[in-house]
């Protein structure tokens, strides 16, 4: 857990720079995915609730460092968006791509919902048009989570190779 925790900090920093400096120039079908959230979610789905929450917390801190929102707000929204799919995961068929996509869509929806409510409370409320503009992110995340899940899975194999017992 400790190694993964320390790995999350620099990895999320790099992703935050990509999110702010590169993704806005290369949107996918006009939509920018929330890369840090997806990585935290994929990590949580692979490693469980505890690590998922820690990764979501760290991801949120980095996101807010490049945003107008107060630091910590995204962490709270990310944690809720990561926790719900992980808690739901055991009730669904394991290791199925559509299930992972569905969980990502659900997590994104929860994260965005909480985030928009919190923004409204802080005076950054969104119009109906603005809210509708966020919905394509849910669909994009459902698709994009699959390659990210694979990459995170490979990263985990590097960070924590399986022990072979004789």
């Amino acid at each position: 857990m400790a190694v993964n925790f320390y790995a999350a900090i620099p990895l999320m920093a790099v992703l935050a720079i990509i999110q702010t400096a590169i993704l806005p120039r290369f949107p996918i079908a006009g939509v920018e995915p929330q890369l840090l959230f997806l990585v935290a979610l994929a990590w949580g789905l692979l490693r469980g609730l505890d690590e998922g929450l820690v990764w979501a917390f760290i991801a949120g801190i980095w996101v807010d460092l490049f945003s107008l929102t107060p630091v910590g707000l995204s962490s709270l929204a990310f944690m809720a968006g990561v926790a719900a799919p992980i808690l739901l995961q055991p009730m669904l068929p394991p290791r199925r791509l559509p299930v992972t996509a569905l969980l990502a869509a659900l997590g994104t929806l929860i994260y965005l919902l909480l985030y928009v409510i919190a923004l409204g409370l802080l005076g950054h409320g969104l119009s109906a048009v603005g809210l509708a503009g966020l919905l394509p992110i849910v669909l994009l995340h459902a698709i994009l989570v699959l390659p990210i899940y694979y990459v995170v899975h490979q990263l985990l194999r590097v960070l924590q190779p399986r022990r072979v017992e004789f």
Partner: protein
Amino acid sequence: MNLGRTQQRIRWLTLAILIGSGVLLTILDSTGALVGVLGFVRDPLTTVTDWTSARADAAGDIIAGPRNLAAAREEIAALQVQVEEQARTIEELSEAQGEAQVLRDLFNRAAETPEYRRVLADVIGQDTNPAIESILIDKGVDDGVRTGMPVESARGLVGQIYRASNNAAQVALLTETASAIPVRLGTTRATGILRGAGRGALPTIDWIDLQYVVEVGELVMTSGLGGKFPEDMIIGRVVQVERNEAELFQRAVVQPAVDFRTLETVFVVTEFETVDTEIFSEEP
């Protein structure tokens, strides 16, 4: 059994610590207590972001090159058709004249305000949150940039500095919901407050007196009232008027002159002449 219970306790404790930290950080940052600490973290990051942004720009130009050429050809063809149509109708000619006037006003404006002190800044990033509209620029406190300063581009007002660290600053765009700018309309001279409506929606001017007959296409500029913005900075044009005789005020929807998604370079206005409001404080 006990081990399981201990793990459960640790899990709850972790969750409580994380949520508590999130709430605490949100409160502390909202009150401005974390400015120094966060600035210390942001500064080295913005240097990296600046470098990354420049490389991403170059890569983007290479990738978009052929597409731009095709788009430009299509645009030229469309413009040729438009020019022919404009030759036939006076209304469309006058519209074209109006557009030209906006551009002329902008150039004149830049020449007319040499007394303003401006800092040129590159846009190095956009807000990482999908619901918020802000940009990151590569100039900060070390360059004289301070919170609240107006930010403009060649086409008009962009927004204002929301927070600044040593070598970078976050700019809240005028379309952001927390933005409120005192404005004046070009022809009717009516005043009001321009409020952002958030991502995907156009900003609106509230509190326009009903005695003014606001027309679609009217130029919207800063009024300078309040002292936070210089006067006569171009913001955009009125695209819709919401007038109801049963209400005390009318509203106008504004199309900003600036295309915020394509911003690359902006000016931070660090010094300007404020509107003299002393007259209102004098006793009769």
